[in-house]
């Protein structure tokens, strides 16, 4: 099976070379023959099939404990549950690269399946650029990080090393694949953009097609980032979900630029503006996904997520250079076609707000990138590695995020082209006054810190603008439906007619909910360290904790100390839950991990960590975090992802027909 996996990988590499070269050859010819395009299309699909087979072969080696394979020996052992044997496929560098290859190829295959309806002049180059991405990652996998290498050992190994205990978690099954789906999905817009530049098919087609693929990648990336945050929250035991860790940041950077693109693309679609800017954003987004991979795999930054330091970093830098130089060269070559067709007429217009939103998103991106790279730069210049921590990122980014929240409220409500001041006052008076009232109420309630008050008020402003948009949308079509404004039929009709627009509002609502939750959990968090003997009690916030007992446990692959703590309400002394935090010692890996005891609530999370047992062996040291509204962060994220799905799914065929009929009617104008 290993031989077969190795062969399938080689075949995928050969196919990638064929499609890259063939696509460029067919694309640069005078006329792309359909038979040649079909051959390229089939080649693109087969790359995914062969890489899928390679992945299955590796999975089979894990499940059957084939320790003749170095990678299997390194990342699994017989005691591991079967689910972790599967997730161990991407537990190390080699297998994660193979998964990456497969997912890039899978997206390329999905594009190939849809490609028969794409403009003919574009598709040959599209296959070429899609497969160039696959070729790069497959080359690394095949030649530098091959997971099918045999273990160099004179004797057969009876057992493997086992997976890092931190990775023996159910989130390992979903977080990395989801994140990789996001990263690899963003290779599709890059390929469309480069294909448009190379072929000269600079019409709106590539923009229209790219938007949906970007949304798909963006939605996966959003889900991947949030799942990572949730995993960190549950597993790392520091009470937070986002530490501005370099590898977390690496996933956040392309998310920011992709978000910027999803807004600016609307301006290009409608106004023929920001063409070069959109090319820049698409290329930057893809370059940042490659850069993120470089950060994780080069060992230049310290992170809990980073793979061991390796010598493949230079390949990513070379590829990054090729991406950037290629994009600059093609953009210069097509500079005439990339000229804007008109300019922004008024500062009070949606296009102007979207441009501002882009600048803020790019500012955040730059600030985060600077924070990530500062230790590297400081070491290069001064010889001493100086790190920047959470305070730097919060100080720089909080005001920028709040500006973004404000623009998020304004952007969708303001008219395209131009708005007059009286109209703006009419649109925003109620949201603004309500937000002001909320701010005053919060101050009277004792919340006097500037940023939290501003964050809550702006979030409320955003929610009010969304409600205003829904109200105006419903009112505007009463003539069509003959129903009352908030009647279900009117709401359903609005949803059907304006699904994408209101899907975007769903995403925005999710962001606002997350903003409130993040603000609350950052600004009003309670954190306390304490030591208790069995039978002793402690009061924290509106709770009391009583340590019942602690004891040792022995499991298949680890030893554990468990504490049993009763959580009670201070008001009525009724037990709410028994919390069981754990300290685990993985025998094989000789590593200690904490297992947090968490009681999630709508009002707050109670998060208890067992730090250890004191020297006398009679008392348990623990740390408690009370995180207000934390759960709403996850609800907000779910709503965001749901909104992404709503916007990304294609309109039903009937709706598209109706749309084309609308266009015909417009012709009669």
């Amino acid at each position: 099976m290993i031989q077969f996996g190795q062969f399938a990988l080689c075949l995928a590499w050969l196919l990638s070379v064929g499609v890259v070269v063939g696509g460029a050859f067919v694309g640069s010819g005078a006329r792309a023959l359909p038979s040649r395009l079909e051959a390229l299309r089939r080649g693109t699909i087969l790359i995914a099939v062969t890489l899928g087979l390679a992945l299955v072969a590796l999975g089979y080696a894990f499940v059957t404990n084939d320790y003749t394979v170095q990678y299997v020996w390194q990342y699994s052992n017989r005691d591991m549950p079967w689910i972790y044997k599967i997730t161990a496929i991407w537990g190390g560098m080699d297998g994660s690269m193979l998964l990456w290859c497969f997912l890039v190829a899978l997206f390329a295959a999905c594009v190939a399946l849809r490609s028969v309806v794409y403009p003919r002049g574009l598709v040959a180059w599209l296959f070429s650029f899609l497969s160039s991405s696959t070729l790069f990652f497959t080359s690394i996998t095949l030649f530098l990080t091959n997971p099918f290498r045999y273990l160099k050992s004179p004797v057969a190994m009876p057992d493997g090393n086992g997976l890092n205990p931190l990775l023996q978690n159910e989130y390992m099954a979903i977080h990395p694949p989801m994140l990789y789906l996001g990263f690899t999905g963003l290779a599709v817009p890059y390929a469309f953009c480069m294909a448009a530049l190379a072929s000269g098919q600079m019409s709106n087609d590539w923009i229209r097609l790219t938007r949906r693929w970007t949304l798909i990648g963006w939605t996966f990336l959003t889900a991947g980032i949030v799942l990572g945050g949730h995993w960190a929250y549950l597993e790392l035991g520091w009470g937070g979900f986002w530490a501005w860790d370099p590898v977390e940041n690496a996933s956040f950077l392309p998310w920011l630029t992709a978000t910027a693109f999803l807004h600016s693309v609307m301006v290009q679609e409608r106004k023929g503006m920001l063409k070069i800017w959109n090319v820049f954003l698409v290329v930057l987004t893809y370059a940042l996904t490659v850069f993120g991979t470089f950060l994780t795999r080069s060992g230049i930054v310290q992170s809990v997520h980073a793979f061991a330091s390796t010598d493949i970093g230079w390949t990513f830098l070379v590829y990054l250079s090729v991406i950037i130089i290629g994009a600059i060269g093609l953009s210069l070559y097509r500079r005439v076609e990339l000229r804007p067709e008109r300019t922004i007429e008024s500062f009070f217009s949606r296009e102007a707000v979207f441009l501002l939103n882009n600048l803020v998103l790019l500012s955040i991106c730059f600030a985060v990138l600077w924070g990530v790279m500062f230790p590297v730069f400081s070491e290069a210049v001064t010889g001493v590695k100086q790190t920047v921590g959470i305070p730097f990122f919060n100080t720089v980014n909080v005001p920028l995020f709040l500006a973004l929240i404000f623009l998020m409220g304004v952007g969708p409500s303001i008219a395209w082209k131009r708005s007059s001041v009286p109209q703006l006052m009419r649109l925003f008076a109620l949201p603004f006054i309500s937000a002001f009232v909320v701010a005053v109420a919060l101050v009277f309630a004792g919340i006097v810190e500037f940023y939290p008050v501003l964050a809550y008020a702006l979030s409320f402003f955003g929610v009010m603008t969304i409600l205003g948009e829904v109200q105006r949308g419903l009112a505007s079509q009463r003539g069509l439906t003959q129903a009352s404004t908030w009647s279900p039929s009117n709401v359903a009709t609005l949803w059907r007619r304006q699904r994408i627009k209101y899907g975007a509002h769903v995403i925005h609502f999710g962001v606002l909910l997350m903003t409130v939750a993040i603000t609350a959990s950052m600004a009003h968090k309670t954190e306390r360290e304490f030591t208790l003997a069995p039978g002793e009690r402690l009061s924290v916030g509106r709770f009391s904790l009583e340590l019942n007992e602690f004891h040792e446990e022995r499991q298949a692959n680890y030893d554990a100390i468990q504490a049993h703590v009763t959580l009670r309400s201070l008001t009525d002394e009724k037990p709410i839950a028994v919390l069981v935090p754990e300290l685990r010692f993985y025998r094989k890996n000789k590593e200690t991990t904490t297992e947090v005891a968490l009681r999630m609530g709508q009002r707050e999370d109670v998060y208890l960590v067992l730090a250890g047992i004191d020297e006398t062996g009679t008392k348990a040291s623990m740390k408690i975090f009370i995180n207000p509204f934390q759960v709403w962060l996850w609800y907000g994220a779910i709503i965001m992802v749901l909104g992404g799905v709503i916007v990304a799914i294609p309109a039903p065929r009937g709706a598209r027909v109706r749309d084309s009929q609308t266009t015909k009617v417009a012709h009669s104008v």
Partner: protein
Amino acid sequence: MSIGIIASLILSLLVVWYVLSPIFEGGGFNFGAAEQPATVGPLRDAKERALRALKDLEMDFAMGKISQEDFTNSKGSMTAEIASILAEIKKQGGEA
């Protein structure tokens, strides 16, 4: 010969046949919409954009985001723009 090698050989034969068969078969494959004269492409984009802008304008007006005066002025200029684009597309031999 091991099963792995036999499976690899079968896979490679299938791949070669599947990828190259369209080239030997020649026709019968369809890609993309019917091609129009090269000059029509930008005009078609301009038409789509103008129609979109008109739709947005009507939507913004219906939702009370722009005044009656702005709506009337903008609609007049947009309608004229669409008419001239359609006329130009017809002149270039494209499908309006």
